């Protein structure tokens, strides 16, 4: 086992364990606490990425089956087992992710008994369910070979053709139906993606990208385990000892540049690229037919997503496969395949998530727990894939069991360092060590009460003013500068709870409460209309209250003694009242402000109860009716209250 493989396994274990912790949290705390899904964006990463894109990339099972069993292209026979394994694991991990996604996972079996044959989701459910069993049957011979079950295998081989045909027919149904799922959203999905051709586009892109997945998996497998058939002899000297020097299957003279299998892979790539080319053509024709060209070129972020998606899914792979140099190079094919896979995933995300944002008016980004589960099930499937491909005859006829560990690291318990090395080189202790490190980390990072405690940062409107919210910010004209208003102090000074009505009753339309200037004209109006008696009377009447100075009654407080009493010679109001009036940019730093209680809330929270009560007591039934106050039907039409 090479070191690279071991590192890949480590990474997969870390991701899978993260996913395990996140899955436990999702089951324990529910969807709302662990995901960023909302009423506006009800479908997220698990459905669109894991289910819709994951299933689309698992088309390999049926396409290779079609080539080998139906079209009798025997040259692709070696890819049947990997393709079926990819399909089996792809469907398996998609369905696992879906189990976490649905709100009531314990009812996942409901569609088996409760039918709605008008629903495309129902069709997808049944096709995926049946097809998952088909892949299991197709995969069974490869796994049963190790056990003494020749009769079963013989029987399975006999029904193979029928099973493959059933599988292809089921696949052609549900891969298109995954596109048909979005036919019900003509007004919600962005016109760049919504089209009555969605089922056709989905199945074309899925077939192309599914074949590309087989190519990529084959090349990566060869790079890691057995480079000769693909990369040619002595292309690399792989680190580690166990790599096979010469594969007996391909004992023929290896090509100087690449391995003998490259011929088959490039034919497969040409088929895939042709399908993807047809997909591109179909998409462009469909776009022109719907008049979507102006959407495509108008430079919105949606249009860039579509251009990127088409470039990745079709243009780059087709070009790379068309150029003879890159077509013959394993690296060229790997890049083409990776691009097609990435493009397909982006396409599904576009149709399932990004295409809905313009309509939902909210942005969805998956939470850490969603990423963890979504990638974790894929990592787990990857681990199973590696295990099966190492221990069963998936890629070649002989069982290329490479279970022996590095011979230079022998189990030994002499010193602490060697104990460590032993543990680190043996798979089980190694995974245990990773688990010990990762699970607590994942727990800390994703524990929902902790995470949600950080996230609830919404400004709660004050429903009634409480003692804690001592300061309100008043920004009456919404010009971005607010005045600090000591609401509780003001309330206490004016006569506690009974005083609410003095500001919140005689209100004006389109203003959320009586403006301060209604009472405080002397403080806030320009000095040439200064309310002298108001200032005088106010100062006199509040003598008993600390902070109010009776000496303010005197003229000389503002006007210099012996000089003409003119506005121009008077003190500025702000000279005295600088500390009374705070003006801040919103929000003022270091404050604990609350938004002022709105007029509507103030009226409905405080007036209605009293009105309804009075209506009963006084016999004036109309007092309790909305139309008593809301004479006008305009917003803010309650102006009529003040007038009455």
């Amino acid at each position, binding site marked *: 086992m090479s070191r690279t493989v071991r590192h890949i396994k480590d990474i997969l274990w870390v991701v899978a364990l993260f996913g395990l912790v996140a899955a436990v949290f999702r089951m*324990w*705390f*529910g*969807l*709302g*606490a662990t995901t960023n899904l*909302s*009423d506006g964006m*009800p479908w997220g990463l698990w459905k669109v990425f894991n289910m819709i894109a994951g299933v689309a990339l698992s088309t390999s099972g049926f396409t290779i089956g*079609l080539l080998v069993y*139906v*079209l*009798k*292209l*025997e*040259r692709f*026979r070696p890819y049947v087992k990997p393709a079926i394994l990819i399909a089996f694991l792809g469907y398996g991990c998609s369905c696992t992710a879906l189990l976490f*996604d*649905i*709100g*009531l996972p314990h*009812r996942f079996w*409901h*569609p088996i008994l*409760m039918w*709605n*044959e*008008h*629903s495309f*989701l*129902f*069709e997808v*459910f049944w096709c995926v369910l049946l097809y998952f069993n088909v892949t299991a049957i197709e995969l069974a011979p490869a796994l049963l070979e190790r056990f003494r079950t020749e009769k079963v295998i013989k029987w399975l081989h006999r029904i193979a053709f029928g099973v493959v*045909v*059933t599988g*292809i*027919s*089921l696949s*052609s149904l549900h891969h298109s*139906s995954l596109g*048909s799922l979005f*036919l*019900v*959203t003509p*007004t*919600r999905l962005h016109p760049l993606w919504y089209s*009555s051709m969605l*089922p056709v586009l989905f199945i074309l892109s899925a077939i192309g990208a599914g074949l590309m997945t087989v190519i990529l998996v084959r090349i990566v497998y060869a790079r890691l385990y057995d480079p000769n058939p693909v990369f040619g002899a002595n292309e690399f000297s792989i680190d580690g000892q166990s790599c096979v020097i010469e594969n007996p299957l391909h004992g023929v003279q290896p090509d100087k540049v690449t391995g003998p299998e490259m011929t088959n892979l490039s034919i497969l790539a040409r088929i895939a690229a042709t399908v993807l080319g047809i997909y591109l053509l179909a998409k462009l024709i469909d776009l022109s037919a719907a008049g979507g060209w102006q959407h495509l070129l108008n430079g919105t972020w949606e249009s860039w997503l579509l251009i990127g998606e088409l470039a990745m899914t079709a243009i780059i792979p087709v070009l790379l496969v068309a150029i003879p140099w890159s077509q013959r190079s394993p690296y060229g094919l790997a890049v083409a395949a990776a691009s097609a896979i990435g493009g397909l995933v982006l396409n599904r995300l576009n149709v399932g998530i990004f295409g809905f944002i313009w309509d*939902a*008016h*909210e942005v969805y980004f998956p939470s850490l727990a969603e990423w963890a589960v979504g990638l974790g099930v894929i990592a787990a499937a990857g681990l199973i894939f590696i295990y099966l491909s190492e221990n069963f005859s998936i890629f070649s006829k002989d069982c290329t069991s490479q279970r022996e560990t590095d011979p230079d690291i022998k189990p030994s318990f002499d010193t602490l360092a060697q104990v460590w090395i032993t543990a680190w080189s043996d798979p089980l202790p190694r995974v245990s060590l990773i688990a010990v490190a990762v699970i607590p980390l994942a727990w800390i990072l994703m524990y929902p009460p902790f995470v949600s405690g950080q996230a609830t940062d*919404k400004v*709660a409107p004050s*429903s009634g003013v409480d003692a804690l919210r001592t300061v309100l910010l008043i920004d009456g004209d919404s010009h971005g500068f607010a005045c600090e208003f000591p609401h509780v102090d003001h309330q206490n000074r004016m006569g506690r709870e009974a005083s609410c009505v003095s500001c919140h009753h005689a209100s004006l339309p389109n203003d959320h409460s009586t403006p301060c200037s209604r009472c405080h004209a002397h403080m806030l109006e320009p000095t040439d209309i200064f309310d002298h008696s108001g200032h005088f009377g106010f100062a006199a009447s509040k003598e008993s209250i600390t902070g109010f100075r009776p000496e303010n009654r005197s003229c000389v407080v503002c006007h210099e003694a012996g000089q003409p009493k003119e506005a121009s010679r008077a003190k500025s109001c702000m000279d005295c009242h600088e500390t009374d009036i705070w003006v801040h940019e919103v929000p003022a730093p270091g404050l604990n402000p609350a938004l002022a209680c709105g007029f509507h809330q103030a009226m409905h929270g405080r007036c209605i109860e009293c009105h309804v009560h009075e209506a009963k007591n006084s016999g004036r039934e109309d007092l309790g009716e*909305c*139309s008593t106050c*809301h004479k006008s*039907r*305009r*917003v803010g039409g309650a102006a009529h209250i003040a007038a009455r």
Partner: protein
Amino acid sequence: MKAILVDVTRCTGCEKCVAACLDSKDIDPAQAANDRVASRDGLSARRLMAVEPIGSERFARKACMHCNDASCVSACLVGGLTKSPEGPVVYDSQKCIGCRYCMLACPFHVPRYEWEKNTPLVRKCDMCIDRLGQNLEPACVAACPNGALMSGERWSLIAEANLRIAKKPDVYIDHVWGETEFGGTSVIYVSDIDLEELGWGKTQSNSIPSLTNPLIEKTPFIGGGVAASLLAVNWVIKRRMKLAKEQTKSNTNSPPNSTGEEI
């Protein structure tokens, strides 16, 4: 079939209907008040109806439209949503698996989810079907003090709507929203301003199931057709291989050693 007529010109936005709705569904008004702010359009799993301001001039009730040929009904894979003969589209919480396809399928963004619960359900207005059974008006209609809401048979409400438009042609826009939109809804609107904000902006006259039903009815034929054509292609290829084999045999009189390369 029962329906509700909303007269936008008569709504003052007093939200008595919302209060009545919360009351009839035994929902805590304090929690619902939070949702009014948190949710973009005032609807949530607790607030099954909202009174939406349209522009700065008008208000209108927003809740489930109870479409005659509802998208959610066709979308639900377990048949948990059904159009009842009385008019409302009703939800069966015993069937729901929580896939939320109905939420995606609804063109009015009506179904809401109990995200914060561990066993969440979809919540939406059911037009007080229990009250309809007792020959009562829906709670919101009964609570409206200004006569902005009216319930009755759908055909009679459409007649009433057209009558109101005919009486005051200078006030109303000559259009009954919901008469034909999305195949017709059981909540219909007359208004003096455009109702784009309520989700009536992007409408189409045919129902959403009419887009999917023709396709899904072909499903068995597509599947069977694919299987049959595969068998046919396979038969042709096998036959050609057999013929080619026989030909080589007769030509060279020696058995061929490879079979797969002939195609």
